[in-house]
Each structure stands twice: as structure tokens, then as C-alpha cells.
């Protein structure tokens, strides 16, 4: 069963899908826009991958002198960056290039330490959609991608639903796309991952213990474009979910 975590009427609730929107664990049926959506599970460590799609890599290979044979490029994001479905993400005034990244988020369900590829998917609890924003203007070549680009407040949208692994027969056979104000700007297939989900779990668990609630953001395909204040950004993965986010400016923050 798909689950969400939402805030409603002064309390936090678990929720499940309902034809009219969602149903709280206490039975109340609500419209999608009547609740505040939180990331759909208790998020542990956020592990993100860069350059993990063959097409995106080809786009960047000349600039970065990288190839698919390199070690996976993994980095952490901090909890300040989390935001749920229908949340907002701030675009700082004066930046030239801020882009979304539609990504399959893999949620660990069982401790994984030195797990082999063949056993890796047994450690997956489920999946959700991530929009892993980046502000390219702030990119520096020190521990790249640096935190000011990726681990910003509200720059990691997750949701709407946590989808149990049992409902996803093959995580490498999913179609992803991003729509900005209703127009498709990014499309890809998880089949094009350089390191697939099982390989990523094998690699990461080789040097760090993955724990229940840890989430692996598996990288994005080609087709990232600049997003502006007021844009509605929908990142969706067929069979997983449709995650909505809106870009806001500095003004509400008093900047």
C-alpha cells in the first residue's frame, strides 16, 4: 500500500491514496490540496548521485572529462534541504541557472553492509520521486558538487507517495519526465542509468552501512533547463508518482 505523511488540522498523519485525494489513517478523506505534504517517510541519510545517466553523461563528457568507467560520483545532502509534495523552492535573485533534476529515490528498508549486487534489491523498502534542485551559479570545483549548489534549504523535494518495493517489478524499467508549466522539458528511462540501483547499493554499502530510512537519489537524465520564479515544476515517474513543486523568489523570505 502506498503511504504518505501529511500535516492536517494541527497534527501529523499517515495517509493512503483515495479516489478523492487521500485518506488519513484516522479515516478522514481529503482533497490533495487540503493538507501539507511532508517527505513520505522518516528520511535518514540522503545520498545523491551525479552523472549517473548515460545520456546526461554524454552531454557533459567533453566539459568534465568524465566517463562511465569512473567510480560513481556520490555526495550527501543535509536534512535542511528536504521539502514535501506541493512545496516551494527558492530561486535566489540574480542567479542565471537553477534547474530541477527528476530522480528515482530508492528507500533502504534493511541494513546493508557489504551487500553484493545480486542481493541488493532485498534491502530496498520502496521508492518515491525526488526533485533534486541545483543552483549552477554556485558551482565550485572543491568537493564538487558543493553544498551551496545542492544542499540548500528546500532543494530536495520528495514524494508524494512512498511506494513499496513489491509494487515495482523492475526499477530499471521506469519512465521519468519533468514538466515546467505543463510543457515536457526532460524525459528519460531508468534503463539508462550508468550504475543501476543494485550496483549503487553494492558500491555504497562497500564503505558505509546503509540503514533503514536512508535514501539514494539515483541521478537524472539529460534535459535540465532553467526554472524561474512562479514556475510549476512537475517531476514524475510512471508507476511511482507525480511530484509538484513551485519556484518562489526571495520576497516571501524578506530577502
Amino acid at each position, binding site marked *: 500500500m502506498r503511504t504518505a505523511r501529511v500535516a492536517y488540522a494541527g497534527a501529523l498523519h499517515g495517509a493512503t491514496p483515495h479516489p478523492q485525494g487521500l485518506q488519513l489513517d484516522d479515516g478522514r478523506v481529503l482533497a490533495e490540496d487540503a493538507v501539507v505534504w511532508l517527505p513520505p517517510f522518516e528520511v*535518514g*541519510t*540522503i545520498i545523491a548521485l551525479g552523472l549517473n545517466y548515460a545520456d546526461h553523461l554524454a552531454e557533459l563528457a567533453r566539459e568534465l572529462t568524465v566517463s562511465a568507467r569512473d*567510480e560513481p*560520483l*556520490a*555526495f*550527501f*545532502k*543535509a*536534512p*535542511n534541504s528536504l521539502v514535501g509534495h506541493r512545496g516551494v523552492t527558492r530561486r535566489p535573485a540574480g542567479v542565471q541557472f537553477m534547474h530541477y533534476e527528476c530522480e528515482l529515490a530508492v528507500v533502504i528498508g534493511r*541494513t546493508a*553492509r557489504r551487500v553484493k549486487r545480486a542481493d541488493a534489491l532485498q534491502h530496498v523498502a520502496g521508492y518515491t520521486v525526488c526533485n533534486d534542485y541545483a543552483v549552477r551559479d*554556485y558551482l*565550485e*570545483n*572543491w*568537493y*564538487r*558538487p*558543493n*553544498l*551551496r549548489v545542492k*544542499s*540548500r*534549504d528546500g532543494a530536495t523535494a520528495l514524494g508524494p507517495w512512498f511506494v513499496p518495493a513489491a509494487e515495482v517489478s523492475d526499477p530499471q524499467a521506469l519512465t521519468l519526465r519533468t514538466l515546467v508549466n505543463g510543457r515536457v522539458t526532460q524525459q528519460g528511462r531508468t534503463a539508462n542509468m550508468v550504475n543501476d540501483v543494485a550496483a549503487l547499493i553494492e558500491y*555504497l554499502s*562497500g*564503505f*558505509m*552501512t*546503509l*540503514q*533503514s530510512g536512508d535514501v539514494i537519489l539515483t541521478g537524472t537524465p539529460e534535459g535540465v533547463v532553467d526554472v524561474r520564479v512562479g514556475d510549476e515544476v512537475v517531476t514524475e515517474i510512471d508507476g511511482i508518482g507525480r511530484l509538484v513543486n513551485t519556484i518562489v523568489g526571495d520576497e516571501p523570505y524578506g*530577502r
Partner: protein
Amino acid sequence: MLVSRPVHPPEHPVQLPAFDAWPHRLSGTVIAALLNHRPQLAALGDAVHAAPYKAPPRAPVLAVRPRHMLAGEGDAIEVPGAVEIGAALGIVIGRTACRVAAADAMSHVAGYLVVGELGLPLASHYRPALRQKARDGFCPLGARVIPAHQVADADALALRVLVDGQPLQASTTGDRLRGIAQLIADVSDFITLQPGDVLTLGASHGAPLAAAGQAVTIEIDGVGTLSFTLVEEAA
């Protein structure tokens, strides 16, 4: 010597220190400043202008230290070979810090603790290099948080690293590109720091090496000590 089990979450939950100041406990979020000690960057010389860096850092250079990296006083930390023992001052946030000015930043500090920053030696600072830097237990935390009002000048504390009792490094918490107040100000421009979060001031240049079988102690005057042992990684 007390032998403790190697640090592997979650069977070995790390006891995060509680302390007698708001918010009384750590949140578990630890963010480390890197390359913040002036001599560290100076040692790179002209390389900071060459590929792959192309320019010196502008924003604070940071790394997240997630829960699997945390260890505590007396723990045995598994290492696959020699590791660098970075010694850093941990700044514990007491009051939510979002876009704070440097002039106000110290009022957001609850206290200080000793933080170890272990890593496999790696010449490059280009990539996050998690395999070398983000292994289980590689961010040990001291058992005590000293309330800020008990530390006169946290930007000028003597710091030492001892390996098997031998002092291998003597440095201070000073001579940073960003001192405590400026670091909080610059980080809080894009990361809201919550009560109980730890931000490190960055290890001192010239971190000594240690290997399995050795006992390490990090001392920061006025803040405390942190001791742990290194053990061979099980095959």
C-alpha cells in the same frame, strides 16, 4: 585497555552527548567545514588556480557527516589502512540560525565539543570522495559539550593530536579563513542550522597519520578530549 566493538550502525548506536544548556542534546546533523585552516589552503599554493580547481574557494567548503559516520568516546573505529586524524572544534547550535549576521552569530552557539575528522589520505579536493572520507565511524564526537559561556575565546584554543600517547600535532582553533561567527553567518545563508546541529570549524593543517592497533586522543584546551582506537577492518 577497554576493548569495544567496532562501530557499525545500527547495532552500535552512538551515544550523542547530552548537556546542561539548551537544546540539551545533539540533533545528529553534523556539517564539517573543510579547507578552513589558512595553512591548508596555503600549502596548495598555485594549484588552487590550476585544473581542476581553477580558482580558490569562495563559499565555505563543506561536507555532511551523516549518522553512519558518527562514533563516540572509547569506540573502536575500523580502518582499511593508514588514516589521517583531523582534529576540529565542533560548534553546537543552540538557537535556529538562518541568515544570521556575523555580529549576531555567537548568540546562536550553545557550546563546543571535540570532533575527529578521519579520512583515507587523498591529494585531491575535487570530489566529495565518500569512499575515502565517509566510512563508518569516521566522525567521532567528544562525550561532553561545554556550554559556550564557559569558553572564553573559542577561536583561539590550543589543540593537540596524540597517537599512542605521542603528541604528533600541536595547533590551535585560530588562523581560520572564517572564524566561528563568520562561518555560521556564511553557512546559514543557505543552510538553516537547527538547535543541536553541529558545525565544525575545520581540522587543522597537517593531520597526522595513524593505523590499526593505535590509540588516538584529540585534546582541545577548555573543551575536552576525545579518545578512540583504530582497528583492522574485518575481511
